[in-house]
């Protein structure tokens, strides 16, 4: 249990997907202009990433390894993730229309979020068991959401401030992300 809590703290703060692993930067910069879209995106990512972690674990250990075609990992995983996203979208539309409306537009974007494929491959590489894979995927997604929501809050506040013309838009956003990453470095050493 203690080990699992350490893993969660590690994945959320110390080895944050955005700030130390550089995964999912495109949506991180793309959908962080407004706080509510950031929250929607974080929820969608958490949902898909957790399921993707579980499914890719099963595919890796019960399909790829027994047949001996691990070298097809990249192709198979990306297809699994793409179809999973479609599947989640269809199921959600039928069973939870309210949730579908809230997350709707973010779901298709998730296929090209490299955090999903990245975390799936990382879990396989570090030989996690099934429960740990699911927990690790979930915690990584929470870390992504945390980073995204903090960033969106700052960017909303930034709209009312004067920024030098040359820095307006993406440059200042990147520099803020850098300062946030600096702040997150303060967590390093907390968990090995």
């Amino acid at each position, binding site marked *: 249990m203690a080990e699992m809590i350490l893993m969660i703290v590690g994945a959320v703060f110390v080895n944050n997907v955005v*700030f*130390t*692993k*550089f*995964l*999912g*930067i*495109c949506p991180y*910069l793309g959908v962080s202009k407004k706080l509510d879209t950031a929250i929607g995106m974080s929820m969608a990512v958490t949902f898909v990433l957790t399921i993707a972690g579980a499914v890719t674990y099963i595919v890796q250990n019960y399909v790829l390894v027994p047949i001996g075609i691990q*070298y*097809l*990992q*990249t*192709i198979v995983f*990306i*297809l699994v993730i*793409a179809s999973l996203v479609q599947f989640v979208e269809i199921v959600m539309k039928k069973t939870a229309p309210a949730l579908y409306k809230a997350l709707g537009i973010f779901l298709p974007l998730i*296929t*090209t*979020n*490299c955090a999903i*494929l*990245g975390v799936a*491959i*990382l879990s396989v*590489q570090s030989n996690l068991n099934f429960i740990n894979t699911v927990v690790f995927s979930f915690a990584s997604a929470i870390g992504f959401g945390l980073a995204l929501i903090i960033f969106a809050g700052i960017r909303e506040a930034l709209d009312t401030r004067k920024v030098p013309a*040359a*820095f307006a838009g*993406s*440059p*200042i*956003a*990147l*520099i803020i*992300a*850098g*300062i946030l*990453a*600096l702040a997150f*470095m303060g967590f390093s050493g907390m968990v090995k």
Partner: protein
Amino acid sequence: MKIGEKFKKAFFTENPVTGLLLGLCPTLAVTSTAENGIGMGLATTFVLVGSNVVVSILKNVIPSRVRIPAFIVIIATFVTIVDMGLQATMFELHKTLGLFIPLIVVNCIILGRAEAFASKNTVWDSFVDGISMGLGFTFTLFILGSIREILGSGAILGYNFLPETSPTILVFVLAPGAFITLGFMLVGMNKINKVLQGSKS
């Protein structure tokens, strides 16, 4: 379109990273040294050229409703080739780039070019497009990697030009330095683009 014009676009005004803000994950992650930047850039260029050519050959065969999955399979095939090729020939580089080699598959530059360019143009044009865009990406990664390596470890391409005792700013080779350097690079590139466009009109 003239080839020179195309390269100017890919390197400056429509540079995938500084102009369109695509493919930022590998850009930030692997540029702690100039050498890694070049390695990642060339691996991406190979995949980009390969997928552009194959997509443009098959553009009339692939039904438009399933084109995105089809493109992804084509891209993933080339990524697997690069992954295995690098592992066999350049093991050290493969180890440092690590996770980001399989992640070339979700680099939006590649799918973006397949969808926006290769699926509508001839094989030769798509080939040139792949080369120019790929080299534009490599160029940006090289510049970013060089700046970070010079500031962060006082070296360029692994060659140490500062005396042993001189101070370096370690944060530039760490994660925060990546974001901050790219932010300042965007400012510089915007300025260059303005000058380039100003000279044209």
